[in-house]
């Protein structure tokens, strides 16, 4: 696999390789180039990157979910109540998402590798300090903020890098990578419980801090990629081909004269040259953040805001709702397990599905449909009053939840293009943070005020339907404006 990308020989190997889609290095040059973007490798080292991103998701998202197992121990040891200990989980989640732009900034300035390794060290230290902690306030800082910051520096860069390595199989790659949170929770939850039984919470946090150190290993494997143009025709749908073209329209970006592309550019880059924006100080801000002005991205971010507001509520309130309608505690816990497992299935299968050539042009449509289905499921929940009725809800909701989680980075990269994917993803996850933090307490307040779970689920469902409808309206407006041209060319700036 490694030999594919880095041939020891020079020209002969490279000439054959330019016929296929391999990465080649880019050069900075003073002359203008008329390059056509060489597309991402779609395999090879890319699958190692997917594996690393999977581990990063396990070590960040799954570990965050396992923190709630510690709360009972903290409550006894520090003589605190549930609300005080639950702050730790909110702090980690919020910090991970809030500092996502910081992660993408670090990735653009230096490299993905550095960002993830630093993030791994930070979160490891955070958990180490937590294991020695003697007060709940120190836990808020070390286990909440420090660990959350470390996770933020790892999460966004690794996801962005997957997008840079894949084009044809992007949705499948993302599906596999994002399934880490589901599979990780499945495996880590009993493991963490066992650690607590054996070593108490201090020892468990100590071992967990070493486990989270594996983020550094994943970071070391995240080889940066440079994209270069490929003159070959492909059967890619135009929108994919188009952002291959988009990449290298900017003269600051490293390019190669097309005449030399077949002769000298066969050598794939092992260590990529610095990101083009790195060489220029002032103009790169505008080129990197140009996507902010795109109307597509603005409508997408608005829809993400509503989506994040609605999607976390069912996870928090499904079990209490099931208990309130008479489902037993074991069955209610089983519902959550079904949700978790089907989530993983949804991640991978939906990713594979939306990579099929027939569905690829309609990826945004598939994303909209999955959000619509989720919203409709939530609206129907108040009518489901038995375990037998709640099981299909758990299956459907879990499947489409996995589906949209795998598609978020794909849709984002479709809209903003590969060059701005890093910055855009940082912003997307930042937009998730505040609704994630605010919506469960608002849902709880609704339950307290009205005495039933119906308004909470209605809020969740409406929020998601709103998110889907914003995208439908935006797509509709777009279609009307650009009627003579095909829908997929979106070149506004």
């Amino acid at each position, binding site marked *: 696999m490694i030999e594919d990308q880095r041939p020891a020989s020079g020209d002969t190997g490279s000439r054959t390789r330019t016929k296929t889609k391999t990465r080649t290095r880019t050069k900075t040059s003073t002359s203008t180039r008329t390059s056509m973007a060489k597309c991402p490798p779609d395999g090879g080292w890319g699958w190692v990157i997917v594996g690393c991103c999977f581990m990063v998701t396990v070590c960040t998202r799954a570990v965050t979910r396992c923190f709630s197992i510690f709360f009972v121990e903290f409550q006894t*040891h520090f003589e605190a109540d549930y609300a005080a200990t639950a702050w730790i989980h909110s702090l980690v989640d919020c910090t991970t998402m809030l500092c996502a732009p910081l992660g993408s900034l670090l990735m653009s300035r230096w490299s993905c590798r550095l960002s993830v390794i630093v993030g791994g060290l930070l979160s490891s230290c955070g958990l180490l300090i937590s294991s020695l902690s003697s007060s709940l306030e120190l836990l808020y800082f070390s286990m909440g903020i420090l660990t959350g910051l470390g996770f933020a520096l790892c999460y966004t860069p690794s996801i962005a890098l997957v997008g840079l390595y894949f084009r044809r199989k992007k949705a499948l790659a993302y599906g596999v990578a994002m399934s880490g949170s589901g599979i990780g929770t499945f495996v880590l939850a009993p493991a963490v419980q066992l650690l607590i039984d054996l070593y108490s919470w201090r020892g468990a946090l100590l071992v967990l801090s070493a486990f989270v150190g*594996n983020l550094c*290993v994943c970071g070391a494997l995240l080889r940066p990629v440079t994209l270069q143009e490929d003159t070959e025709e492909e059967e890619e749908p135009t929108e994919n081909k188009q952002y291959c073209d988009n990449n290298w329209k900017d003269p600051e970006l490293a390019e190669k004269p097309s005449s030399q592309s077949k002769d000298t550019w066969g050598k794939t880059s092992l260590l990529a040259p610095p990101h083009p924006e790195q060489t220029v100080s002032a103009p790169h801000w505008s080129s990197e953040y140009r996507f902010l002005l795109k109307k597509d991205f603005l409508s997408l971010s608005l829809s993400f805001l509503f989506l994040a507001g609605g999607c976390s509520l069912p996870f928090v309130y499904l079990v209490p709702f099931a208990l309130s309608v008479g489902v037993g505690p074991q069955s209610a816990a089983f519902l959550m397990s079904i949700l978790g497992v089907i989530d993983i299935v949804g991640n991978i299968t939906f990713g594979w599905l939306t990579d099929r050539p027939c569905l690829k042009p309609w990826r945004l449509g598939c994303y909209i449909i999955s959000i619509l289905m989720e919203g409709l499921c939530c609206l129907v929940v108040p009518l489901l009053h038995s375990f037998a009725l709640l099981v299909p809800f758990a299956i459907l909701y879990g499947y489409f939840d996995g589906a949209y989680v795998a598609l978020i980075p794909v849709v984002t990269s479709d809209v903003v293009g590969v060059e701005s994917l890093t910055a855009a993803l940082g912003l997307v996850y930042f937009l998730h943070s505040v609704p994630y933090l605010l919506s469960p307490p608002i849902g709880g307040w609704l339950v307290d005020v009205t005495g039933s779970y119906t308004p909470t689920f209605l809020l969740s469902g409406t929020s998601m339907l709103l998110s889907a409808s914003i995208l439908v309206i935006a797509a509709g407006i777009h279609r009307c404006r650009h009627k003579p041209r095909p829908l997929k060319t979106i070149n506004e700036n």
Partner: protein
Amino acid sequence: MALSMIYSPLLLLLVSCSRRVVSKTTGPTPAPLVPTSTLPTYVKSVVLKGESHTERLELLNPVNLTLECTWAGNQNKEPNITGWWLKDGNDVPNSRVPVELQNEQYNLRGVFSVNNDTTLGNYSCVFANEARIDFLLEAPQIGDVREKPIVSYIGDSTVITCKMDDTKPMPITWNWFRDNGTEKEQIIAESSRFEIKNDERKTRLVVHDLTEEDSGLYYCGAVFAISTPMSHVKLKVITIMEPLKPFLAILVEVVVLVAAILLYEKTQSKKKATAENVPSADQNNTVTQEEPNGPEGSPSTRQRKV
């Protein structure tokens, strides 16, 4: 002739004894134990449907307990059967009485003074070995007993808790005991290392400066007027070495892997730099549009990312 002379006095004795026994039990059933007048009384009646039944009674304070059993009888419906009481499977002395069939039912009644631990237990009324009602007398039991041991570290402090269910009555106070090999020894709160915080339904034992000898069973007792039901928790004190072993193992794995990967990447990049410098010189000659800066600039830019 001689034999009947020996047996007849014996027979007379037997008859007189049995007559005496019969006369003792023909009247209303007397109480097997003498009740004290200071205790309150409580009556519990159970009608048996079927062959056996168990009734649980939770007692907080000493009482004079009157237990009444009623049995509808079987197909035979004999006019007189024998009934007696058992405590924890043993016969209660002087409790065996004949029971008459009244209104198609058999009634058996016993009065017991229940005032301490020994008098609590399983009282059963038995009808002629055919029907039985069990009365389980006990003080409120402490629910949710923690089966897994509490683990803590030498020098650290730990908190052991006991909680009485919200559905059960509140104890007067809580006591803590430590297993001393042979018996349970009460832990005194005033000693420096132990702190007891009682909170009506909950109690907390805080132990500071743990040592290995502190490992073992700890008992919390909920004090009621009648008895002190107990629950136990196991404490295990370990050294920091125990979790340190997996921690160091994983840390070593991480450091080795990171070093190996970075080293590998660095050597590969150096190899690539030397490999590319050679053909780039050729490229300069063959391609006319090639810029002089290009190939020479590339090795430095290429190596910037590690």
